[in-house]
C-alpha cells in the first residue's frame, strides 16, 4: 500500500493525490448508490401515480437535472454550517457532507432518466404483471428487472456526474488536503497554481479509474443475447 501511495504521490505536486483517490472513490460510489436507490424509487413512483400537477413535477425534475452544483453546494452549506439548521450534525467539511450534496445533485438525474424510461416500459409490464398475479412489490421488482439495462445506464450516468463534480464538493468539503480533497478539487487546485500538465494527468487518471470501474460493473452484469424476432 505504502509503495503505491509513494508512487502515485510522487507523480504529482504536494496535493495529496493518494488520499484524493480514496476520497473520490468513496464519495462517488456512496453517492451513486444512495441516489440510485432514491432516484429509481422516485422515478418509478412518479410514473406509477397520477396526481394533479404531475406534469409540473416532471418538468421541475428535469429542471433540477441541470441544477448548478455550486447552487446545491450553497444550499447544503447553509444547511449544515455551524449556525445552520442541521449544524448539530457536524458534517460540514466532511466526506459525509459531500455525499449529501452529491446525492442531491445526482438524484434528480437518475430520477428523471428512470421516469423517462418507465413511461415507455411500465404500462406493458404492469398489464403483464397483473395477468401473472404479481402483487405491488413483485410488480415493482419486475419493472426494475425489465428496465435493468436502462437503469444501469442511468446509474453509470449518475456515477459519471458524481466523479466529475467539483463545485459542490469544493464548497461543502472544503478541499481539505488528505481529508476531503477529491481528485477533481485537486485538479482545480493544481490548475489555480498554474500546474496545468499535472492537472491533466490527474484528470486522465480519473478517467481511467472511471473506465475500470465501469468495466468491473459491466462484468458483474449478466448479459443475455437480446436479438428479437420481429
Amino acid at each position, binding site marked *: 500500500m505504502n509503495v503505491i501511495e509513494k508512487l502515485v504521490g510522487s507523480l504529482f505536486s504536494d496535493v495529496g493525490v493518494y488520499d484524493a483517490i480514496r476520497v473520490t472513490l468513496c464519495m462517488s460510489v456512496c453517492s451513486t448508490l444512495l441516489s440510485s436507490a432514491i432516484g429509481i424509487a422516485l422515478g418509478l413512483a412518479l410514473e406509477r401515480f397520477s396526481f394533479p400537477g404531475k406534469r409540473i413535477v416532471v418538468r421541475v425534475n428535469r429542471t433540477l437535472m441541470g441544477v448548478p452544483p455550486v447552487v446545491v453546494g450553497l444550499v447544503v452549506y447553509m444547511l449544515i454550517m455551524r449556525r445552520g439548521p442541521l449544524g448539530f450534525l457536524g458534517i460540514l467539511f466532511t466526506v459525509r457532507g459531500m455525499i449529501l450534496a452529491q446525492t442531491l445533485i445526482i438524484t434528480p438525474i437518475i430520477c428523471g432518466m428512470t421516469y423517462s424510461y418507465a413511461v415507455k416500459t411500465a404500462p406493458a409490464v404492469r*398489464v403483464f404483471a*397483473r*395477468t*401473472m*398475479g404479481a402483487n405491488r412489490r413483485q410488480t415493482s421488482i419486475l419493472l426494475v428487472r*425489465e428496465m435493468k*439495462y436502462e437503469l444501469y445506464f442511468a446509474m453509470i450516468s449518475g456515477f459519471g456526474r458524481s466523479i466529475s463534480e467539483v463545485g459542490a464538493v469544493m464548497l461543502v468539503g472544503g478541499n481539505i488536503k488528505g481529508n476531503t480533497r477529491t481528485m477533481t478539487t485537486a485538479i482545480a487546485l493544481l490548475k489555480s497554481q498554474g500546474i496545468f500538465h499535472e492537472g491533466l494527468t490527474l484528470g486522465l487518471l480519473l478517467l481511467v479509474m472511471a473506465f475500470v470501474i465501469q468495466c468491473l460493473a459491466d462484468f458483474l452484469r449478466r448479459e*443475455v443475447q437480446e*436479438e428479437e*424476432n420481429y
Partner: protein
Amino acid sequence: MRTTEETRQSFAIRMRNVEKRIGEFQLKIEDLTLEEGRIHGFIGGNGSGKTTAAKLMMGILSPDAGTIERKDLGPRDITMTSQRPYLLHDTVYANLVYPLRVRGRKPEESQVRALLARFGLEDKAKQYARSLSSGEQQKLSMLRALIFEPRFLIIDETLSNMDPESVEQFEEMILDIQKKNPVTWVIISHRLSHVYRLCDRLHFFSRGSVLASGTGDEILFKSSEPEIRRFMSKEMIRSGSAES
C-alpha cells in the same frame, strides 16, 4: 328472482351495466355472465370490444360505470394471455416459471422440461424468449398461463399464429383440464371452427356490446341476427370431431 339456470350453475364473473369509454370507442355491456367451469368463446368483428371486455374482467381496466363481480377469484387465480404476448427480457425458462416465482412456488425442473418438450420447445429453454418464432412465442405464453393452474383464464387470440398441430394439442390440453378439474375459460378467437368445437357458450360482440350469448349451435347456426349470419358466411365450420 333467481332463474333456475342461475341456481344450478354459479357464475365466475358477471358484468352488469358496465360502460367503458376509450377514445371514441364505447363499450356497453348490460349483462354478461360467465358460468363457472365452462369454456366461453368471445367472437365478433375487429374492434368490437372483445379485448376491452377481457381487460375489464382482469381488472386491467376499470369500468366507467356498472359492476363486475368476481366470485371467489383473487388476483392470483386469474390470468390472461395477451394478443401480443409480453415476454420478459429473459430466457424461455425464466418466462415459463415466472408465475410460479410470483406464487413462491419452486418450479420442478423435470416437469417444466417435460412441458416444454410436449410442445416442441425442449431445445429452447435457454433461448432468449423474444427471439422465438411467432408461434413459439404464443406457445410459451400459453404454457406460462397454464403452468400455475389458474381458475379463470382468458386466451386472447393466442392460438392465431400456431400451426395446426399445436392448436390441436392445446385444444386437447384444455379439454383435458376440463375433464379433470374444470376451470372457467374465455377464448377469444376468429377461428370459428375451433371456437365452435371448444366452447360451451359463445358471446357475439358487435360495436361495443354483446349482441347474443348462447351455445355454439344457437349462435352460429340458429341465430336470426343478420350481422351474425353475415359473419358466419365467411368461414366454414367443422362440427364434431371430423377428420379431413
